[in-house]
């Protein structure tokens, strides 16, 4: 019962191909965009909301994207605007970056190398090598999304000590990833 393709379905095919391109570009870059957003919007859930809005805007405006230019800076530009809107709406928070810094950071992220999937695989492996207590802390911070004093309460310590412990665990993980990938992940420490 299949009929010969008519004009409307050809347009659908083109749209489908364009969407596939968008899918590929987005899946290659979305974590960098998320990383940028999270570095400015600390709260995980608010950051996720901003990512959603960014993703929607990227999809809507994809026809305007000049494919001869790199995708990440373009997407980060959209993300930056969404971030600024969110920060303005939550301007009661004292500890947020100003407009200039938000813009500067979007440029910083645009220049980061995008081989992020290798990093994730290495990181996943490194996490499995951690001691039980360390993994527990990471779980409380990153899965249960607890604030510092809740983590402190859960582990019977202080917020400061918990923060320091997380810092050291991340340092260990960074060194581990670095040794696995052999890349110079400049990150201080």
């Amino acid at each position: 019962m299949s009929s010969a393709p008519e004009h409307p379905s050809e347009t659908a095919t083109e749209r489908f191909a364009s969407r596939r391109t968008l899918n590929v570009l987005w899946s290659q870059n979305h974590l960098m965009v998320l990383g940028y957003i999270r570095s400015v919007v600390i709260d995980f859930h608010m950051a996720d909301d901003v990512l959603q809005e960014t993703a929607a805007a990227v999809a809507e405006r994809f026809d305007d994207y000049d494919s001869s230019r790199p995708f990440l800076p373009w997407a980060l530009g959209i993300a930056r605007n969404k971030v600024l809107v969110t920060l303005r709406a939550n301007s009661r928070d004292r500890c947020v970056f100003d407009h200039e810094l938000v813009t500067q950071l979007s440029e910083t992220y645009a220049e980061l190398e995008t081989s992020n999937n290798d990093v994730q695989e290495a990181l996943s492996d490194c996490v499995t090598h951690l001691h039980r207590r360390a993994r527990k802390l990471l779980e409380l911070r990153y899965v249960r999304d607890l604030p510092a004093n809740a983590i402190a309460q859960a582990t019977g310590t202080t917020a400061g000590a918990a923060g320091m412990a997380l810092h050291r665990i991340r340092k260990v993980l960074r060194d581990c990833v670095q040794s696995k990938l052999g890349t110079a992940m400049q990150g201080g420490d």
Partner: protein
Amino acid sequence: MATPPIDTRANDDPALLCSAYLDGTLSSEDDFAIFVSWLKSSPNSRKQFAHAAMLHTNLQVVMQHNDMREFFVEDNLADASFRMVDPRNIRMMLDEAAEAAAKESKKAAREAAAIAAAAAAEAERLQAEEQRNARPRRPPPIEIPRPLAYLAVTAIAASLFFAVSSWKERSSYQTQQAAVGPAKIEPVAAPPSIATVGKSIDAVWSNAKGAIGMGARLMPGPVRLDDGMAEIALDGGARVILEGPVSLDLLSSGRVRLTQGRMVAQVPEEAIGFTVSAGGASIVDLGTEFGIDMQREGDFGVHVLDGEVALKLKERAEPLLAGSARAVDASGLVSREIEADRHTFIRRVPASSYELAILKSRPTAFWRLNEFSNETSVKSLGSLELSSPAGAGAHTGAESRRSEADNRALELLAKHDGINVGYHPGLALANGFTIEAWVVTPPTLELPSPKRIISSFSESPDSGFALGVAGHAFAGSNDFPSMTLLFTFYGVYDCLAKVGLRPNNMYHVAAVVDDQGKPSLFIDGELVPAAVRGLEWPGYRPVPEIVSSDMQGLISRGPLFIGRNPPSQTGIYPPESWIGQIDEVAVFDKALSEEDIQSHYQAGLR
């Protein structure tokens, strides 16, 4: 956040400042100001910060992925005694995620690299010192973390674009799920294929490059079947049976996301944990078969056909056993019990276009009559899955004249006992039903009496219906051809068509009785002119548009037979046995439209 300021040494160490900022412990305005001025001071400091923040972001993805994996069978677990999630304790297990994570960590710690262990031990020593002062408490009950409530997070976050048109309608709460990031970490540059296309029938794929054939390998990504049916075997072991139109995203060898349409998932034991996400919820298979039907964007119904599943909503999970069904709204928040209807779904890819066409119309009973010649009973598909004995003289396994490969038919020669289907309330029909079949007509042109294809004639009271053929001898009038289609309600009326049938020829025939009781006859998919004769009337008249009460058929309480009338107690009506072939007999408990009959006929020609 009123936390004590961190150690003043932090002022000297930008890395610590980054960490504290990312953990949200940098609340003192002075510390924050120092941090900001460091960031603004040079692009290098921003680069350093960005690296730290990327680690932080990656870490969240990795931790959540690791956490989710613990609830399912690991694909690469060596031992066969995999951990199964007991559906009765799902909530408890989610609440005790800490214990499960600890067990897994203990095992991993034994293989820990020396450097990592030493550094982590230092962190632990610091905590241990503090623990000596305060006894560690079990964490207070924590609400199920949001990420765990929808475990089938997209492996390719890009799949969120497939529903991009409906974004604006969704609440932000629900859209967060896609932002958690890839659950399965794979290099996107060359995604490995994860599934194989199996059988298909009349499949029309939305794929610019053309048809996807059997054995084709599929990569993660969207799949859309516009028409027909197809089976996809995922590498993890699960099979999905797709009924077009349907669209879904293949996420990994053990996860798919349904975005629209109807599918059945069949999951053998080795693929337990297979997950379908739909809207804001997901269904985790625990060794079963289940069907999921999504017609409006995001709202879906899930029917457990066999075994059990865990239905994971946004904020809780519930186990579902075979025979139960739920309707879930698009946000994944609300689920309500609905009547389970296993016949909503076609559970295997039909073998022929005709079978697909009939099954899509949801027959009450559909006898393919494809049995081999040594088989002594015939089986029906559809709402009624019956097994009925083939009587003496009713030969299965005859070569069918239709072009479909491996198709067989019922051959009826001389005197025979037909097939006794028996009595079923679902087949006791009077209004709003349809009968369809493929037949080879009797070899003689002059029919002294009718020949019945299917009949439920019964006496005391005279009741039941029959579809068959008859000729002008029966009609007593040369207005009718020597052989034509006849539909009878016993004791009420005969409806005789006016288009002739040739002997020993194959035809598609159908009779539709609408909800008011008006009969329509079809030959080879076309509505044919017909006339009716009742008990009271002197002859044949055209079928009236409005059917009067004296044309209402009575429901038979006796058995249904294929190939002849049921035996008469008093001998008042003869067997009127069919001579020729009968194939693909279908009975529907609704009146199909002319378009339906035509499209069924067309499907049978392929």
